[in-house]
């Protein structure tokens, strides 16, 4: 297993995440896609740390902690969205338009 394999895996995960982010209409699915993208970045950190050295593994742990916080905020938003719209499809929420 080489660095290239790891980066290919990370790229694949990231692309799937972007695809999901753009196509999914359900708020939970969008959150999951974002998680995929974040984990693609984590794989990159770990892989570079493993093959090139450096403190990437430590960074991956930090990123995991941040992701947890992010998910907490994201789920809170989903709950609020549900409360105001009785639905969690984000293409129904257009309040950001004036």
């Amino acid at each position, binding site marked *: 297993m080489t660095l290239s394999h790891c980066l290919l895996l990370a790229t694949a995960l990231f692309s799937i995440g972007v695809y999901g982010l753009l196509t999914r*209409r359900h708020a939970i699915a969008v959150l999951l896609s974002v998680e995929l993208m974040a984990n693609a970045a984590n794989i990159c950190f770990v892989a570079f740390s493993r093959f090139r050295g450096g403190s990437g593994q430590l960074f991956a742990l930090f990123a995991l902690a941040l992701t947890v916080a992010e998910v907490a905020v994201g789920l809170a938003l989903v709950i609020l969205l549900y409360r105001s719209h009785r639905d969690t499809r984000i293409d129904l929420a257009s309040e950001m338009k004036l």
Partner: protein
Amino acid sequence: MTRPIVLALVGLFAPAAAALLLAVAPALRRRGTPAAALTILGSVASFGAALLLLADRLHGGPAALATVPWLRSGDSVIAEIGVCADGVSASMLVVVTLVALCVQVFSLGYMHDEQPPSFGRYFTYHALFLFSMNVLVLAPNLLQLFGGWELVGVTSYLLIGFYFRKPSAARAAVKAFWVTKFADMGLLFGLFVLFAATGSFRWDAHLAPAVATAVTLLFFLAVVGKSAQFPLHVWLPDAMEGPTPVSALLHAATMVAAGVFLIVRANPLFEQSETTRNVMLIVGAGTALFAACLALVQSDIKKVLAYSTCSQLGYMVAALGAGSMMGGFFHLTTHAFFKALLFLAAGSAIHAVHSNEIDDMGGLAKRMPWTGAAFVIGALALAGIPGFSGFFSKDLVLEVVEHRLGHVPWIALLGTGFLTAFYMGRVVVVAFFGAPSGEKAAHAHEAGWSMRGPLVVLAALSLLGGAFTAPFARLHGEPYALHLGVGPVLAAALALGGFVLAYRVYGADRRAAPAVLEGLSKVARSRAVNRFYEFGFHRVALVVSSGLAWTDRYLVDGLINMIGYETLEGGRRARPLQTGLAPDYVLAVVLGVVGLAAWAVAQ
């Protein structure tokens, strides 16, 4: 402050105080009589100060000048404001305040039938006018003179349009304003050139010949407008729509003389340009003759006097063009007295008959002996009959003009003298002698003393004005001797001849219309000069300005409006980009990142 300065300041501010008080206290103004009393009080103070000032000057007191800085630029003073009490301003101040006082007292009787508010308004304007005129007369430099000049123009507008409910009076006021404003551009631009050349507004600057000609020609344009010289004389006959005492003060004695006064004041500048003086000589003599011809065929007594004023102002301009400041200025002085007298006497007659037409009068001398005597004295003085003031001043004018430009202006002025006697003779014979032509003329009667008193004063001055010739000459440092030659004798003979001819023609038949005059009355009726200006206004000025207005409205404004419209339209087109949907924004971010990445790779 020295005595002359104090006197000059009193002369300047007495009418100003009256005008200011009446302007800020409407209650006082609307009562009428208090306004008149205040104005006349101001004029009396002003006249008294002027007399004392003149007496000082005649006894050889020093010329006095007091100024305060007015316009500053950095540390240097561009122009000053103040009073200048010398021989020229002192004598002019006496003329102005004396005539103003006479006219105001006369107005007490003449305007008696006005409602109190408009009576008060009338006298407020008079106080303002006297102040404006004194600003002009006492100016220590040409810039302040210009200020007074414009103030006089405004008060003239107000007084011509005094009966503003009458459309013809309102139109005449606007016309007078516009014509003189057009001419005033000359004074303004002349001041610009003068300041550019010398850095000051002094009238005794030395200029290069070309600059002197430019400045004085520009000044002369203003004179042509203000003093109603051909071809800008058209406003003066129309200005007769104002009350008759106003015509006597502004449009005969003082305001129209301001133009001539400007030349007298700026004489050191005018002396530097031979060209301008020749132009003045030609315009002055030409106007004198032309206006006298038009006066022959007028039937409105005020219009006769108006054209006569143009004609006499022509004499003054011609004399100044011939280089005699004394001649022009002395004729201004005597003319102020006898023309004010003629206008006031005419006003008295109009007041009695309620008509301006001389054909509605007739036989007034018998019923109104004071008015009749005053008018006859004024007419004799105007025609220059020996012994009357007009003879002495006209003699001075004719003497200096005699040898200029191949005798042509001299002959024109001699001819004008004959015509003057003829048209004045006509008015005297038709309006004051013979049988009354109507009910009103038959029952005309003399008005009260407020109207008779000023007539007596002005008649005395018209009769005895010649006695002032020598002191007046001494005041202006020029030698004077009555020269008895062919000129004065010829002038006197022509004047007498004019009266005799008028008596022969109109004594027998008051409505006689000699064939010679038929053509003239056609010229007078054709309003050729007026039509020229109307053409110039409608076909040239209006077309050019509507073209400019179109350019401004559709090209300049259009460009600005288009930029504004396109901005709005662009915003409107960009609006759908903002959907408010999070996925669309995410798409934008992704596309942006992909774009950036592509750009980075391409680099």
